[in-house]
């Protein structure tokens, strides 16, 4: 992890150097052990970011993973932005998050 750089909020400075191992490390810092469901969420976010350059709506995450909103908030207690997007290696979204 020594070579990884984060912004003040703990979001990866360079999203391109993200790997699954990096995700595991970030998740661990939040007290999260990555399960299949965690990976499903992270992969949707990651793919959306690669395709569109931003974080997906939580609606998209639910649709594509088949998970309920409640599940997402339980999997990532800090929510889709500070929780899931950070694990997925995205830059911090703008706005009140």
């Amino acid at each position, binding site marked *: 992890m020594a070579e990884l750089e984060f*912004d*003040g*909020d*703990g*979001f990866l400075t360079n999203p391109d150097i993200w790997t699954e191992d990096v995700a595991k490390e970030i998740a661990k810092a*939040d007290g999260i052990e990555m399960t299949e469901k965690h990976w499903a969420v992270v992969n949707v976010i990651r793919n959306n970011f690669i395709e569109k350059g*931003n*974080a997906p*709506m*939580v*609606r*998209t995450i639910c649709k594509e993973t088949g998970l309920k*909103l409640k599940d997402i908030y339980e999997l990532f*207690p*800090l*929510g*889709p*932005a*500070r929780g899931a997007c950070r694990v997925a290696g995205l830059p*911090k*979204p*703008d*706005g*009140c*998050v």
Partner: protein
Amino acid sequence: MEKLTKEQIDKAIALLKMRPDSKLETHLNACVHCGLCASSCMYYKAMKENKFIPARKVELVASLYRRYCTLTGRVAPFLVNARELDDQMAEEMIDSLFGACTMCGRCVKHCSIGVDIAYIVHFGRRMLAAMGLVPKTLQATVDAALTTGNNMGIETSDFVDTIQWMEEELQDECGEDARIPLDETDKDILYTLNPREPKFFPLSIAAIAKIFYAAKESWTISTHMYDVTNYGLFNGNNEQAGQIAKRLHDEVIIKRCKRLVLGECGHGSRANRWEAPNYLQQPYEFETITAVELINNYIRTGRIKIDKSLNQELVTLHDPCNLVRNGGLLSELRFAVKSAVSNFVEMTPHGMDNFCCGGGGGQLAMSEYNERRIKIGEIKADQIRKTGAKVVVTPCHNCVDQLSQLNQVYHLNVKIKTIAEIVADALVLDKE
């Protein structure tokens, strides 16, 4: 930071010299250095460095005023501690005025002579904005609002999809006639949202829609302009703040609605209700109220029925600075929460003397000052812990986000809810 150019400096000084009224001079020259503000400030309390004392923040701007706007300061600046606007000064201003103030205004209430310190900090931010020195992260949020119409850059199709999803959830619970009407005209209410609701936390939209359903309200949300936030209040660029405010103003006119109802957002309520008519230099043709006041009207007039026994857990209230200390809703918030819960406990201190969540003034957007934001938030975390509450209610999505982070970092183990959510939990729907 790159070296300041003469052009940049001139722009900031011009602002200092352009005075539409005497407020700036009065407040810049009134500080008697009593130091009472120090212990009122979360930054100073948490970090005990002199640069965090509110009077020191005022002094930065005041020393520039003396240097450029008084005779002694121009001729013999050393006699009156007048300072040059140079690179060093600009860096100190960025660090103190953007990076170490939530503009919560608690120091203003504690000031022995009532200096409007938050106003001076905002003026300093205006000088920095004139020099193009707004922190990038904060400016990015303003830019997103200016270029896309909402501060998270949500596309309209995505927004509509999420609203329809919440409408389906609502209909599952309340029946087919429960709706979230989009882009309708001639309604009593144009309702607004914080973009983080549709983007990441849409349950609060379903909650307010359920309340509107119970109240049989005539309402709509505009897909073109629904954003209640205005980060132009924080970046010091009043022109941009005015552009964002004007869009929402115009949308009420275009949709021919009678009232603008501000979703649960502290700074957005302040920006749209108190500041916007000043940005635009015009009185508004329609009434502007907050969602909390509207909900209270329903409760007072019996338009909705609430059974507070449905909320049994111990609840405390976090007062958003821009709604209470700077917004006048002290008793309104308490009326709403106490109407909806069985067990309520106040924080100490609360109300006009409440501590900020730590994420106000644009801090939540500025990653570079994250460490400070979490550090000052410990004061709020301790306040919450001491109440023993299981639920913290706050009518501001910015506060919700900061409190959620504090909840995790400081292991508070509480739930954070908006007022619409706690009221919706206690709502009794008429069985027909």
